[in-house]
């Protein structure tokens, strides 16, 4: 679990790059349909729910529900994954077992776009946090969800209504989220003490729902621009721009 000494985050959605008709029809994540059309009979008394959105128009919704092979198991060793994004968890091949709770899901073909995302994986650790990842269109890896402040990765909900929503998209209108920052910035300083690290990705819904593009998908000549807005000792509102050009 990472440590952040100062809670800095506000995540803002970036200006969309959807076509006009897609902009008009992209339902806000908070309002998308959470109905699951068909669910299996779960063995666990407490299945855990997470919802992944795999397109920028918010049409491709993929439910993931964790279950157990028997009620007395400690580990959630069964995953129901909506492989065809039809809202049902009862189709063939949608029940996957792994005794460590780490599920290799192969490829996912988006039924709305025919885009093929590869190396799809979901893993839940022994503290209950879930990390989901895929190679977007077979290219750069997207992973999530990350917390806004110090805390675990995505924690699935006890019901579909409580499920966090993680937008696992490797293009479109990106948001920025802080990963780490010092407690304060030093005046008269522009060295490592004032270093702040950011993700670039997409905001979701619920705690620990930010997804990050893991690979260096931005060209090398594209940086983050940070504008510090402060009051000078002369009482004047001042702005100072810095380019954040490093990557790690």
């Amino acid at each position, binding site marked *: 679990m990472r440590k952040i000494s*100062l809670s*800095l985050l*506000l*995540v*803002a*959605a*970036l*200006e969309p*790059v959807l076509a006009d008709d897609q902009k008009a029809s992209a339902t806000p994540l908070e309002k998308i349909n959470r109905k699951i059309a068909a669910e299996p009979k779960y063995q666990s008394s407490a299945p855990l729910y997470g919802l992944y959105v795999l397109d920028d128009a918010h049409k491709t919704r993929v439910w993931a529900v964790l279950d157990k092979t028997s009620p007395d198991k400690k580990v959630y060793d069964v995953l129901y994954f909506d492989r065809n994004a039809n809202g049902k968890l009862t189709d063939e091949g949608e029940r996957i077992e792994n005794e460590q709770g780490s599920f290799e899901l192969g490829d996912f073909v988006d039924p709305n776009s025919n885009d093929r995302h590869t190396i799809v994986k979901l893993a839940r650790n022994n503290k209950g946090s879930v990390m989901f990842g895929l190679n977007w269109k077979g290219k750069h890896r997207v992973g999530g969800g990350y917390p806004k402040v110090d805390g675990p990765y995505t924690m699935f909900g006890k019901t579909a209504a409580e499920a966090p929503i993680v937008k696992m998209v490797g293009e479109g209108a*990106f948001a*920025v*989220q*802080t990963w780490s*920052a010092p*407690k*304060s*910035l*030093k*005046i*008269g*300083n*522009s060295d*490592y003490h*004032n*270093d*702040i*690290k*950011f*993700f*670039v990705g997409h905001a979701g819904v619920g705690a620990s729902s930010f997804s*990050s*593009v*893991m*690979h*260096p*998908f*931005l*060209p090398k*000549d*594209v*940086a*983050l*621009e*940070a*504008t*510090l*807005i*402060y*009051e*000078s*000792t002369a*009482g004047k509102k001042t702005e*100072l721009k*810095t*380019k*954040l*050009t*490093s*990557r*790690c």
Partner: protein
Amino acid sequence: MLYHGPVGVADDAKPGKAILRVKIEPGKGYDSKPTEIAVLLEK
């Protein structure tokens, strides 16, 4: 992948609260609405 760097703070900055506005740099083909975060400036 994390994007990072030292944020410059000028000598004439007054200690206390400030705002940091972050976005993908303009003019590179990535339109963005900036994210604003609160920061603390100290000597």
